[in-house]
């Protein structure tokens, strides 16, 4: 539906800025008066002031992106580096396992990142990494108060990200593929 906004030229009175001034004053004065009586956003929400009472974020809030583990506690990320590629401010830096690197900590997934770093100073919480991740391994969670005493502290490594991210149950496709393969006894070449 198109909404037509009235753009007719201002009349003389309006061009003196007086109505705008008056309107502005009315609004500000109203809020001011309210505040003087001790009412404000915090009292409206009814739960006090920020540092003592942390702000309750809405569902779907895009806070800090963290890596998650599956229900077996295994790292879900397979180091496909799509998030690193999509990340607009280049906040993500992944070190792939390389030929000698450690395999994934669950069977069949073959690989996982050797190191996974998100620079929270760079991250703009856009959520593209979560959107692009084919393994549902990274989620923007509800943390919004990220602090550190220096820049290095604000670069979260894999260990920290996994710890903060917690468990996020999923369909465990690698596990199912392995089970499916094991069921195919008729296959002439032995699996495993």
């Amino acid at each position, binding site marked *: 539906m198109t909404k037509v906004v009235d753009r007719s030229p201002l009349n003389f009175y309006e061009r003196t800025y007086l109505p705008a001034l008056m309107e502005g004053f009315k609004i500000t004065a109203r809020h001011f008066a309210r505040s003087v009586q001790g009412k404000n956003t915090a009292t409206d929400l009814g739960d006090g002031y920020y540092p003592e009472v942390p702000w309750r974020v809405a569902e779907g809030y895009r806070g800090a992106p963290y890596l998650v583990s599956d229900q077996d506690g295994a790292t879900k990320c*397979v*180091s*496909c*580096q*799509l998030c*690193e*590629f999509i990340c607009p401010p280049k906040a993500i830096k992944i070190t*792939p*396992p*390389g*030929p000698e*690197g450690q395999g994934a900590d669950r069977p*069949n*997934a*073959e*690989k996982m990142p050797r190191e996974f770093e998100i620079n929270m100073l760079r991250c703009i919480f856009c959520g593209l990494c979560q959107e692009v991740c*084919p*393994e549902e391994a990274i989620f923007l969670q509800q943390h919004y108060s990220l602090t550190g005493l220096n820049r290095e502290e604000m670069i979260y490594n894999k260990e920290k990200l996994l710890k903060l991210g917690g468990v996020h149950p999923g369909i465990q496709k690698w596990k199912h*593929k392995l089970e*499916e*393969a094991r*069921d*195919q006894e008729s*296959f*002439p*070449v*032995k*699996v495993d």
Partner: protein
Amino acid sequence: MSNAVTTAPAPTAPPPVEKIRIKVDGRDIDVPKLMPDWQGKLVPTTMLQACQMAAQEVPHYCYHPRLPIAGNCRMCLVEFGTPVMDPATKKPVLNEDGSTKIARSVLPYEPQTPRGAIACATPISPGMELYPSSPATKQMREAVLESLLINHPLDCTICDQAGECKLQEYSVQHGQAQSRFVEPKVHKPKAVDLGPRIVLDDERCILCTRCVRFTRDIAGDDALGIVNRGSYNTIATAPGKQFDNNYSLNTVDICPVGALTSKDFRFKMRVWFLKETKSLCTSCGTGCNITIGSRENVLHRFEPRDNDAVNGSWMCDSGRLNYPWIGRADRLQQVQVRGQASDWGTALGEITTHLRNASDGSVAIIASARQTTEELYLLRQLAVRVGALTDSVEREGEADRLLVHSDRNPNSQGARLTGIAYTEIGISIPSIADGIRSGKIKTLIVFGEDVTKCGIDAGLLGKVGTLIVSDILPNATTAVAHYLLPGCAHAEKRGTFINAKGRVQKFLKAVEPKGDARPEWEFLAELTKSLGAVDGFSTIEGLFNRMASEVPALAGVEWSKLGDHGVNVPV
């Protein structure tokens, strides 16, 4: 380009090419009747080639221009039609409007259904019409892709091919968004060790047999084949055999999917991050064209780059894997003067003063045939200026029947043409050694060689008054150098090499040098300029053009004419 540049026989009038007129998507086009096949023999032009000439790319998996045709993947199916012939007159039947009547090919038992032909193996005939963008062709492609994906694991997230995978690309361009296949997939062996350098994932293989044909027909090592039947078809090595010939990694390049992957590159970096730089392989005199894949100043892989005049589409494994030394931690990174850390200004200043005062014949230069032609040229100018004896070091190996050359220096011809060395490389090294022994030669300049390994042993080196060394990695010569100038690997600079057959080829810079290291030509240029030997250029292009104008063999060559594939000069 002047005639001196090319060794190709003077162009005789080419034999008239017989052309056939066909239609591609309704457009008339004349295509040659015969075209060279993978061995260069003239064979009838195929539909796929005709479509390519009409700028209609036909998707294909098993077809590779440098391999024999197999026609097994069916990806290249294209709908076509042929002129209707009157059996009596043997003349084409005409429509009412006067155009030739075309019969679209259909299934014989089901005349409503169009029947495609595999474009890679079907020759064209006069008057033929090809429909590479018709709805029927599209449908055929969709169907082929659907069946290829039936048992495909969709491992893309952990597949090294992702990003340069033809299955991914064609699925996006020609495939369907959803699979109708709901049954469990056939699972095949994963991460199979085929040989020292190759890993095979059988689930991802689409059985195009490119790898089989390559190793049998190109590498001449019949190591691979298909075992089992039906949807259990798998690629495997012959029992007890390893897939380990020196060309095995080429199959990783030609495998259209991620079935064959390189152990060296495995899980190292996603390909879409790699910056591609055109360069050359430095491991032998063939000078294979390569593409360097690097990211953020780290080299990740070498891949062959097509060049008909040199290496076709291939390169050997030993050359391909000869890169990790460039990133070695013990690279020379610090300019040193008599063992003390110094800087370029000081070192070059002192060397200039020293060389200016050196008497004629008291200086000798040993320059590696792994330096670029420009650097060798500058060293030669330096030698002329100070009256120095020069030579290079020979590196011999065994040649093979495909690419590897017995000369393991990438630029022996450069050393010869610039006058650093005689036809027989290394012939003057004994006289240099004698000169040192007799005390006549007081200053030795060494570029990129460990001279203790070629006739000037450590004791003799100790007698040299001033030893000026530039190298990349530490060795016995750099250890005793009075002036140590850290140089660059070819991936860190620009320049040219002249291969054993006299092809001048250029390479570009992929990564930044480490520490103090600078391209040798840069500081050599400073040195020769301050000594008044050569001047008048500030870039590698200028230097090359100046060299070409002075070295007789390079007459007429210019940097801008080298292109990506180089030019031949008489050697």
